């Protein structure tokens, strides 16, 4: 690992000042499960590493306020998986967080870091997109909130500008009843990067949102307002036709070693139908008890 300067700000103001003084050759460290490996492999050679784990404003890592939960930049996958409210309101996020890496990775890796890392295969991206999450960004000009669909740009790229820091992700439980489910395809069970990731949400007004990743430069968010996907009595053929349109942006790489483009497209259809089916079942359970 190349030599770097290590900074550990204790407040958000200090973190912003350190970032401003460091220019572009800086990396932000939270869990470090990607960054430390990248630095060791010399894919990443920052002059300055800013460790944000002791920034006072980023604790506690999970805060509920009414129907909104704020996942600070220090919130780990394990903390998200263990949170009762997130299990109740955002079960697909839990299903995604619980398959990231291994136990030890999840004890360290953060949800915000998963998004800022910008991997097209990031497991938490599809559920956060489908739940309309907001990313909270702090910079020299203050705080801005940006929809996660606009925050995610491409492989390794986000809407984070020089001098800025993503401090949190906000999720608001919708006022409507929503069923949701996350699906992923890997080569083997256990620790593996996903070949296809997909999250579906179905609400009681018949609107379905599907977000899918690992089949192109970024995870895409699509909406079906026709009511066909959400309709438990619609035929598989009718749903398949809608899903074809939704998956039109899939552009899986021919160079990937994990799966061929044809296989990924085929599995996208399977996972899409499966996730919509499970989301409808969960919606019906909610309607049954409400």
């Amino acid at each position, binding site marked *: *690992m*190349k*030599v*770097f*300067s*290590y*900074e*550990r700000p204790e407040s958000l103001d200090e973190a912003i000042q350190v970032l401003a003084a460091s220019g572009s050759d800086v990396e932000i*460290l939270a869990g*470090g*499960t990607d960054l*430390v*490996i990248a*630095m*060791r*492999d010399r894919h990443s050679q920052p002059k*300055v*590493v800013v*460790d944000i*784990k002791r920034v006072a404003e980023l604790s506690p890592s999970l805060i509920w306020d009414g129907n909104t939960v704020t996942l600070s930049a220090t919130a780990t996958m*394990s903390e998200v998986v263990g949170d009762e409210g997130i299990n109740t309101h955002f079960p697909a996020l839990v299903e995604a967080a619980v398959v990231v*890496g*291994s*136990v*030890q*990775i999840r*004890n*360290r890796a953060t949800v915000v870091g998963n998004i800022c890392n910008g991997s097209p295969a990031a497991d938490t991206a599809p559920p956060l997109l489908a739940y309309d999450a907001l990313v909270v960004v702090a910079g020299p000009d203050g705080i801005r909130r940006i929809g996660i669909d606009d925050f995610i740009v491409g492989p390794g790229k986000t809407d984070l500008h020089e001098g800025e820091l993503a401090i949190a992700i906000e999720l608001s439980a919708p006022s409507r009843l929503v069923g949701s489910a996350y699906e992923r395809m890997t080569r083997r069970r*256990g*620790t593996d990067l996903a070949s296809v990731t997909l999250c579906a949400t179905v609400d009681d007004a018949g609107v379905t949102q599907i977000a899918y990743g690992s089949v192109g430069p970024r995870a895409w968010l699509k909406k079906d307002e026709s009511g066909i996907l959400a309709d438990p009595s619609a035929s598989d053929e009718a749903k398949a036709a809608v899903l074809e349109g939704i998956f039109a942006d899939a552009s899986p790489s021919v160079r990937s070693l994990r799966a061929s483009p044809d296989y990924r497209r085929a599995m996208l259809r399977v996972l899409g139908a499966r996730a919509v089916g499970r989301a409808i079942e969960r919606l019906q359970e909610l309607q049954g008890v409400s």
Partner: protein
Amino acid sequence: MSETVHIESTINGRDCAFEVAANHTLLDVLRDQLGLTGTKECCVVGECGACTVLVDDVNHYACSMLTHSVRGRAVLTVEGLQDANGALHPIQQAFIDELAPQCGYCTPGQIMSAVALLKENADPTRDEVRHALSGNLCRCGAYDHYLNAVLRAAADMRNAGQIA
């Protein structure tokens, strides 16, 4: 801006203060600076689990943490498991009794993940043990033996009143 960092941590129950290079991982420091070579270096990319240690009772990969991360925290490695009289930890003893290790290289990591599990769950099912050890690879494929050992250790420790 400094390139070495002063660290104070509790390592295996002892308060330690040392200077580390900013770019050294916890694994580098444990093995090369503190001489604690029970924590194994293997894949070094956070996939195999041979370097698993406990930080404040939670299991982590030492290869993918910078040493700064353990400032003010309690680190436990396999060397810290035996008691003051040198008796093995019940989990270590159970690994021996069940002939769990084959080549033994992944064993310290497997044991540390088992320690983390039994701190949280005194009576795990076989599936829960499998899940808890899923971040620790064993290229000999001795997984079933490890599961037997962890279940035996859990029973031994419950019977001895060491966990509940």
